[in-house]
């Protein structure tokens, strides 16, 4: 049996060795592992996580087209797109920080677990420094949480629930798209102007997180101007035929139907409401009206003639008459033969905003990027003057109120812009009760170091 003998020389030697060992990671690896997926070669990889299968696959395909276009423009290919109109002039068309931009794609399937798995794979296997895309709030919240844990930046795609930058906000996550509160704040004055302040509204609401926050926001805004909410019926997400939900509306005394539905749900519920001739009815001595708070171009195409005259809101529409929008429509249209959707535009803007933030920060380090994006004011990406609020990482910009066109001349002008609601009207306090109240915080930035 050996005997362990301690003496002063041995103790000093051992202490020095242990001390050196402990110091090793900070001495030799601080630069190697300063943050997650620090680009080492001459390329930087972005991860585009969009629905490539499932009900929102067409929307995902459109997002991917825009993301690819953004990469092209960042690398100095094509016509440069919005690099020509963007008010920040940090981007030079030579990639990001001199590194050529590459990308990998993942399929969210519009399922939170699948979206997290594909984002995780892009971060761990492909070395993605930023994840962008998506067509659902459930997915956005799930992927945002993952990115926060992994120490990469999440630039959300289409996500409209208040929670994304409300109670589920994260320091590493940023949303350019508008939210349910903004839809309600933009729509309410138009609804009052067109329908009056003495109305009775019946809500059909998709039974999941986005539907609830949408309904809550619209009810709050319309009740504040004098409307009464007669009823709110939650409809299963898997519903296909809404006739049995429509007929009770006829006997409820309501004179407005609010469809808090998105995608296939909205196409079906609106089609069913039109089949029952609701828009030609008179209730309480007023013309019956239908409101669809959140529109998208694909939903409008799916609903066809049924959207004629129906009011809703959008984050962006290709018919916007500003330099950034005109440039983006030209670049996108000439390359793909169709105008961009609002989900495509938000993804394009997000990729450029991330790249620009890296350039201005002089690093890909997520904490540097967060600092560069917080409180960043810009223009020239299609929405007009826009600002990334520091407290919740939500973009504030004008919101569009749109209406289904009565006489569209092509397949692309089925929606017409009724009003561009100014930013001030859709702005709220960061600790607003609908956004998690004072308890909701971003937490601290995670660089993954």
């Amino acid at each position, binding site marked *: 049996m050996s005997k362990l003998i301690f003496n002063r020389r041995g103790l000093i030697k051992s202490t020095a060795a242990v001390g050196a060992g402990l110091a090793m990671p900070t001495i030799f690896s601080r630069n190697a592992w300063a943050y997650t997926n620090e680009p080492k070669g001459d390329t930087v990889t972005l991860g585009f996580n969009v629905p490539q299968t499932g009900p929102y*696959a067409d929307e995902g395909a459109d997002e991917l087209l825009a993301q690819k276009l953004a990469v092209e423009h960042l690398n100095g290919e094509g016509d440069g797109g919005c690099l020509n109109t963007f008010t920040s002039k940090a981007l030079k068309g030579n990639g990001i920080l001199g590194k050529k931009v590459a990308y990998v794609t993942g399929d969210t399937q519009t399922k939170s677990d699948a979206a997290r798995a594909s984002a995780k794979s892009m971060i761990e296997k492909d070395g993605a420094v930023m994840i962008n895309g998506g067509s659902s709030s459930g997915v956005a919240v799930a992927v945002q949480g993952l990115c926060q844990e992994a120490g990469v930046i999440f630039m959300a795609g289409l996500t409209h629930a208040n929670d994304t930058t409300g109670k589920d906000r994260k320091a590493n996550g940023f949303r350019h798209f508008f939210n349910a509160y903004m839809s309600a704040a933009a729509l309410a004055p138009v609804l009052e102007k067109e329908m009056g302040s003495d109305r009775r509204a019946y809500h059909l609401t998709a039974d999941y997180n986005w539907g609830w926050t949408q309904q809550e926001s619209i009810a709050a805004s319309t009740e504040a101007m004098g409307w009464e909410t007669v*009823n709110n019926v939650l409809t299963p997400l898997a519903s296909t035929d809404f006739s*049995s939900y429509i*007929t009770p509306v006829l*006997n409820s005394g309501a004179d407005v139907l609010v469809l808090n539905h998105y995608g296939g749900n909205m196409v079906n519920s609106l089609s069913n409401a039109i089949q029952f001739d609701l828009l030609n009815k008179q209730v309480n001595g007023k013309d019956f009206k239908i409101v669809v708070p959140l529109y998208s171009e694909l939903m409008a195409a*799916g*609903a066809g003639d049924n959207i004629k005259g129906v009011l809703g809101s959008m984050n962006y529409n290709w018919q916007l008459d500003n330099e950034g929008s005109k440039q983006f429509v030209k670049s996108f*249209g000439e390359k793909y033969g169709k105008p961009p959707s609002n989900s495509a535009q938000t993804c394009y803007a997000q990729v450029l905003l991330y790249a620009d933030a890296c350039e201005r920060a002089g690093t890909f380090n997520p904490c540097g990027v967060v600092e560069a994006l917080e409180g960043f004011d810009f223009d020239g990406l299609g929405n007009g003057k826009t600002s990334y609020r520091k407290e919740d990482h939500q973009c504030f910009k004008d919101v569009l109120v749109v209406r289904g066109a009565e006489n569209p001349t092509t397949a692309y002008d089925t929606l017409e812009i009724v009003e561009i609601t100014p930013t001030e009207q859709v702005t709220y306090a960061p600790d607003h009760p609908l956004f998690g109240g004072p308890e909701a915080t971003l937490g601290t930035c995670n660089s993954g170091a």
Partner: protein
Amino acid sequence: MDAFILQILNGLDKGSAYALIALGLTLIFGTLGVVNFAHGALFMIGAFVAVTMQKVLNLSTELVDPTKKDFLGNPLMVKTPYVENWFGESAGQFIINWSVPLSILAAIPIMLAIGFIMERGLIRHFYKRPHADQILVTFGLAIVLQEIVKAFFGANPIQTPAPDALNGVVNMGAWLNMSLSYPLWRIVYFCFAAIIIFGVFAFLQFTTFGMVVRAGMADRETVGLLGINIDKRFTIMFAIAASVAGLAGVMYAPINPPNYHWGMDFLVLSFVVVVVGGMGSLPGAVLAGFLLGILESFASTTWATTTIPGINQIIIYLVAIIILLTRPRGLMGRKGVMEE
């Protein structure tokens, strides 16, 4: 009272779709003993026959109209359907407008052919395999079929409107001094479903072919021993069941815009209908289809959803549990079916 009658009508309408799909499922199960999870996909393919017909009739020549601009400011390409060029504008528009009813003519041979190919090419290899194998392979087939449809038509729903003459609402309560406006096409759908259901029962009841099939359903081996090629007749029955599902899909297209996922949306409900009606029982499938359709409608009323929140989401499954607990073979199930 108005609301009550409207919900009955809604229920009958929904039930029509459930009954038609469940009828086909039961026909296949009763004749071939196969649990066909691809049956919902046949309903979806039927709807896409209507979509294809609409697209074919809208095939157009393109001419530049310099007076109009596209979204990029270039001269607009104006489309004129070939049928308008061939038959004149009004006749051409009439044909396009009636594309869904015209689709029925195309759907019958197409669905018969698909049913025949499906049965001969795949299903027959699984007759003697366990039900679990049949479910797996037909479920896989359903996914393949929906992905093929998605590859061609995309994931977005496609509007397939009813003819203008059959659009709008009719006031069914005029003679009762009630306001009972109901969509005309939904009434057409119910009548169509009733005709198809009656036709299938009449075919099985009053024709020699049907008599042999019913005998085969009761005792396949004995019928075979009599020198009758029962397999051939069952293949034809499979094709007929596929046609019934396809026609149900064609006529349903104007009610809700078809999308590639329709098959899955209706499949689970239709299986519940079959189980509640009684495995292998054709009248049971029809009865359960209408019964569950009506119950689902009533569960969606304001009164029901405020009294028991969420009842609209569980009613069908709740009823299925109650019926299976009290009548394990379903409403009209036969002894010995799936009980070995």
